[in-house]
């Protein structure tokens, strides 16, 4: 497969960036840890969003939560990946808290 074919195939891939996801369970969430950690990572339910060209945190927040002002929620959940909230890159996989 030549580079043109590869590019053509990539170009025609569907864009799933507007997919919404969720979950629920009959089982309870784990109890908070006894050491005072009131928000264990395990109790936060997330899904993954792959950044596409033209995205910003507020744009993703707008699409995921219907509110661009909630961009900080995404930023806080990805502090290990995002050094500067104004700089995210296509292909980055961000955790989106539910």
């Amino acid at each position, binding site marked *: 497969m030549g580079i043109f074919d590869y590019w053509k195939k990539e170009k025609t891939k569907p864009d*799933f960036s507007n*997919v919404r*996801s969720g979950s*629920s*369970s009959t*089982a*309870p969430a*784990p109890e908070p840890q006894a050491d005072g950690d009131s928000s264990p990572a395990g109790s936060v339910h*997330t899904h993954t969003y792959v950044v596409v060209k033209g995205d910003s945190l507020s744009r993703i927040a707008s699409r995921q939560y219907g509110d661009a002002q909630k961009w900080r929620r995404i930023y806080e959940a990805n502090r290990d990946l995002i050094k500067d909230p104004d700089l995210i890159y296509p292909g980055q996989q961000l955790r989106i808290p539910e």
Partner: protein
Amino acid sequence: MLSAFVVVLSALALLGCSGSAAPPPATRSALTVADIDVGRSVATDKTIADKTDTFRPGDTFYVAVKTVGSAPGATLVAHWSYEDGQRISETTRTIAPSGPAVTEFHVSRPNGPGDGWPTGDYKVEIVLNGVSAGTEKFKVQ
């Protein structure tokens, strides 16, 4: 002679210990995935109400994961993908079941003009605590 006596005494002591030891409690501590179903909707008990492996572009995909056993904290992940593995979404949920439980995951896509799911083959893989517990394949047509 003395050493033989010690050996016999030790053997008797061991027998006595093994005879008096209580058997381990017959509890199921491990959490396992018992069943995975996909469909278009879930009932109030989180089980699939409308099982299918063929969806329409405007449908929401649901997967229900039945688990048995208990765990103070277990992580279930649903990896949704399209055709040759293109990632759609990955949803994580942490649960602490104390018996049989059902966890549902769902994904949807806006169904405006030109939207909805593209036709083709899809799959959802369920991962429990980092280990694949099964994959369900379905299609949109």
